[in-house]
């Protein structure tokens, strides 16, 4: 079987298109590359959707936490504390069993026990909490002069937020937010190890990598392949976020632009 044939059979296996059965023996390098790469579809799916949806909620949480009104502040503080203070792994388990319990009573919750929706919701809330804290920190460090200038121009309420506070907050938070995005993509690998079933063996990259490691009892091939894919993904994320960073800082002189600094990845 040629490599092209393998790619045709397994390239979209993670979303259920192509060959039904996973390879059982005589694993080729091509099969491992193709299947693990196919699993990356799920990692990108979870990461991108959770990041986009989480961004807006995180802004709301950041603003809520810095609000003086306790009716906004307290819920935001608690949500951030709960999702940042507990392991994501436990959150996945709890979310899955919560949806399972709800499903037994209301048919509406049927799709929530599947990974594509249930895990996405957990990831969405998790990333919103982490980014919300970042945005809160950025809101606190907005230069006093910027806000005073906005007041002097007669900007108030929504206009002041939209034109002055929000862009400055994003500019200050962006390097940390880039790290958060990278962690989020790494965190997506936990999904299929935490209760959410991989229906018809449609799993993510790590699911297939550990499948190969179990079958061949040789971790030295699939995990480095997985690592390679993730390093590639990390580089793509960094370059996209770098472009946005450039746009956010375009009004500043070259020397004053905030540099993107990367911190080592950490588990949550």
């Amino acid at each position, binding site marked *: 079987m040629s490599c092209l044939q393998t790619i045709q059979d397994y390239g979209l296996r993670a979303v259920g298109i192509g060959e039904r059965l996973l390879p059982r*023996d005589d*694993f080729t390098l091509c099969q491992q590359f193709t299947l693990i790469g196919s699993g990356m579809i799920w990692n990108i799916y979870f990461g991108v959707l959770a990041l986009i949806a989480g961004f807006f909620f995180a802004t709301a949480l950041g603003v809520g936490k810095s609000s003086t009104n306790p009716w906004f502040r307290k819920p935001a503080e608690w949500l951030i*504390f*709960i999702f940042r*203070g*507990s*392991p*994501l*792994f*436990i*959150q996945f*388990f*709890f979310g899955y*069993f*919560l949806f*399972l*319990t709800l499903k*037994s009573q209301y048919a509406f919750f049927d799709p929530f026990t599947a990974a594509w929706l249930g895990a996405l919701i957990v990831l969405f809330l998790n990333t919103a909490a982490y980014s919300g804290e970042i945005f809160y920190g950025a809101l606190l460090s907005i230069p006093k002069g910027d806000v005073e200038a906005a007041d002097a121009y007669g900007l108030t309420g929504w206009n002041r937020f939209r034109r002055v506070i929000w862009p400055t907050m994003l500019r200050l938070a962006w390097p940390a937010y880039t790290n958060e995005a*990278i962690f989020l993509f*790494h*965190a997506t*690998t*936990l999904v299929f*190890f935490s209760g959410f079933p991989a229906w018809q063996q449609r799993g993510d990259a*790590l699911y297939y*990598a*550990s499948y190969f*490691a179990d*079958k*061949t*009892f*040789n*971790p*030295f091939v699939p*995990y480095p392949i*997985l*690592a390679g894919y*993730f*390093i590639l993904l*990390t*580089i793509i994320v960094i370059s996209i976020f770098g472009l946005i960073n450039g746009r956010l800082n375009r009004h500043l002189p070259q020397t004053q632009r905030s540099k993107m600094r*990367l911190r*080592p*990845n*950490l*588990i*949550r």
Partner: protein
Amino acid sequence: MFPFCADPEQLDSLRWTLCYLTTGKHMNLYWSVLTVLVLLGITAPVALSFGFAGASAARSAFAPLRWFGKTYIALVRGVPDIAFFLFFVIALDQAIEYVRHRVLCPDWSEPVRQGNDFVVCQAAKMPLGEAPQWVHETYGFFIAVLTFAIVFGAFAANVLFGAMRAVPHAQLETAAAYGMSTRQTFWRVLVPQMWVYALPGLSNLWMVLIKATPLLFLLGVEDIVYWARELGGSKTPRFTDYPHGDWRMWYFLGLLVFYLAFTRVSEIALDRLMKRLTHGQATAGGEAQRKAAA
């Protein structure tokens, strides 16, 4: 556990709960909480020493050692940590067995890796095939500790490397001017001063380490996640005296609260430690303390 637990069907709900929560299997759950604490207790210092070694190596004047330190630190960037966990557990196990195989069975001619199998001689198995169950469990636990230490050692190395660079350079130059050797400067000037710069990073790391402990489950240790799943699943009256529905949600809620409480307590403790360490330091925090006292 209690004498009145003999016939659970006759009990009122409060006593039933009390008896239910003290069954033998629940004792296993409580033991596994202890396992987590032991893991943290062992891993934290080991990872810190790995980190210290890594950071010192990355600063070394001897190029290969420096490359080794930098590679070790850089290795953990860009790759999901859970992949490291899954990788190291098998890789360490195989490395140990391979070395024992080479030493103990020198006249073995067949290759170790035969297709999809990893074959070593009986004497090289780790632990030995006839060893009792607890040896297997302890061995698995220590492989897990070593894995945690390697991964978190790299994080700690990164933090300590940054902290070593944050110590004002004038201090090191002064030490050199006093005629101290490189070694003396390192141990007497650099190391005592770096902790205050390292503490924020290290306390962050401690929080992350706490939150990484449920991953023990993936390493095949019977930890709290394992027992929560086991105990929470629905039980029929045929197999247990305490039948109940699917309670896994509540067990995991309990774990969630446990971790929240643990991180909160650590947060408070680390805040206090930071206050003590910044006392009298030439940093913004130390200056603020001085002004508040005056």
